[in-house]
């Protein structure tokens, strides 16, 4: 709908000026909102001595110290890859498990379905702190302590309910007649599900994958608790920058910037679907 003439009180036209004002205001607010991040990026391009000696908004002496340290130290790269690994694992596993369940909730009613759905929901609301100790012991007991798979599994606690919730919403948008038609046409359920149904909810899976990635990537507490050295997430590694001699701001901010990049990339790819996912109001 282009060139819709907006109205305001008493039939006066909202001037273009007023519309532009709103636009300016929005981007102004966004600029201010981005300040902490801009500051972080700015810091990442200075070395510690410089940071501590003077306060400046735009670095005059650019140093790649922080970044070189990050890339040259295997423990940094290693932990970064760990985080990416378990996040991806978690996304895939959660999707695999959630898809059939979401289908069940969307298409059928069965004894206890409402209670099950609610119970799933509450897991999304579980405080991580509650599970720290039991997780610590449980994952040691099953020999998954300090492994990416362990963290991936642990994160399924809150991610699987979320995935079921969002996917069910998208699936409900696909008419049930489709299933019936496919059945009449002789499709076995498995084939129908994989070759017909899933492509139809492509955007839904995209949105779900985004949220799964997001919540797993950002979660620190559990990830830190059930890992030690081998599968240590980047978040734990970052606490290493705080030592007796002070805080390694340069390295810390460089690492911080590095952790933001995967998220930005993912958002960019799903930007057209984000609104749709939120539209279900099921985050």
């Amino acid at each position, binding site marked *: 709908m282009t060139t*819709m003439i907006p*109205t305001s009180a008493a039939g006066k*036209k909202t001037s273009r000026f007023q519309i532009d004002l709103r636009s300016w205001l929005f981007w102004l607010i966004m600029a201010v909102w981005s300040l902490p991040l801009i500051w972080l990026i700015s810091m990442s391009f200075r070395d510690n001595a410089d940071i501590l000696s003077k306060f400046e908004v735009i670095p005059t002496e650019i140093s790649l110290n922080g970044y070189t340290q990050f890339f040259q130290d295997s423990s940094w790269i290693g932990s970064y890859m760990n985080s990416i690994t378990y996040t991806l694992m978690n996304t895939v596993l959660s999707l695999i498990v959630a898809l059939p369940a979401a289908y069940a909730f969307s298409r059928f009613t069965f004894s206890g379905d409402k209670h099950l759905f609610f119970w799933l929901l509450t897991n999304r609301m579980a405080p991580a702190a509650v599970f720290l100790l039991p997780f610590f012991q449980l994952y040691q007991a099953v020999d998954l302590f300090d492994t990416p798979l362990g963290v991936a599994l642990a994160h399924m606690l809150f991610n699987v309910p979320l995935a079921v919730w969002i996917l069910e919403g998208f699936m409900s948008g696909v008419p049930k007649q489709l299933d019936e038609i496919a059945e009449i046409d002789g499709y076995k359920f498995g084939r129908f599900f994989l070759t017909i149904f899933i492509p139809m909810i492509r955007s839904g899976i995209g949105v779900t994958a985004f949220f799964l990635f997001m919540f797993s990537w950002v979660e620190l507490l559990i990830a830190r608790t059930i890992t030690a050295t081998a599968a240590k997430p980047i978040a734990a590694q970052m606490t290493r920058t705080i030592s007796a001699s002070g805080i390694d701001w340069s390295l810390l901010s460089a690492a911080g910037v590095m952790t933001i990049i995967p998220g930005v990339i993912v958002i960019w790819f799903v930007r057209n679907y984000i609104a749709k996912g939120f539209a279900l109001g099921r985050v």
Partner: protein
Amino acid sequence: MAEIRLEGVAHSYDGGKTYALNPITMTWKDGKAYALLGPSGCGKTTLLNIISGLLKPSEGKVFIDGKDVTDVVTDDRNIAQVFQFPVLYDTMTVRKNLEFPLKNRKVPRAKVAERVNEIAALLGIEKDLDRKPSKLRSDLQQIVSLGRGLVREDVSAILFDEPLTVIDQNFKWTLRNRLKRLHLATGVTVVYVTHDQTEALTFADEVLVMDQGSLVQAGTSESLFLEPQHEFVGYFIGSPGMNFLDVEASSSVLTHNGKPIGKAAKAGLNGSHRFGVRPEFLVPSKSGLEFKIDRIEDRGVFKLVHLSKDDFKFIAKTEESYDAKVGAKANFSFDAKRAFVYDMNKKAVSTVSPSSAGGN
């Protein structure tokens, strides 16, 4: 009570690359009911939104009662619009819904109450005034939507955008009837957009058929049915639509694959054309063209006879008394006033009378 006039109104959503609405100039008179009929994408909703002021046309001017309203905002245009689904303010009662447009225009309270009661009586919803609209049946909800438009005394025209779309099948008919009676009672100009020909043909005094952004033909339902000036009108109106056949004209004699079909009334017609005749006017005859009967559908009050000849098929609509065997040969002819020949621009050029010789 208003006259709506369009001068060269056209609209492009992409800055001139493609036109959703091609230039149209016409006048809609006071108090009549007009239907804009056409398939989705034909531009009817665009045209409606231009009239109501929700869309500013990229070209042309709009006049309401002689006043140039092209740049005037919607709420100053004195029109009301009813949408495809009931548009109501859920948090307000029906009464408050009806009061809303008046209160926004600072009408004095006593007058507001009086007007609301008046309209509610007209619409037959007095008993529902203090209920929440979401509790009403969908057709009544549409009535309330309409009510919000009627409540303003200065309303010149009411625009309907496919208002029966979400109405329960059982109530479509009653709502349509009610709308028609309300139109007669209030005497406002009504423009009704639909893709359903039955709605259009029964509701409107005059139907404007649109296709791909252009007005194809305007006329009463009778004239559209009996004299389709454009192929699209022949095709879109009528159920089933017109039968068409590619023909070659040579000195006004129309042939298909060399076999004569008919003779155009207009002299000196040559070249590639299309012949059209409605199923209703393809009648069994002793002379005429010989067809083979493929299938007969008994529809109770009439029969649809599927015919084939050489490489083409026609459908004839006959009385229920028509009796013939499937597979048999039968002759059908047509009334010279009811068959047409269309040029390559799909425009009707002439009527066609059957060939004198019995075709084979």
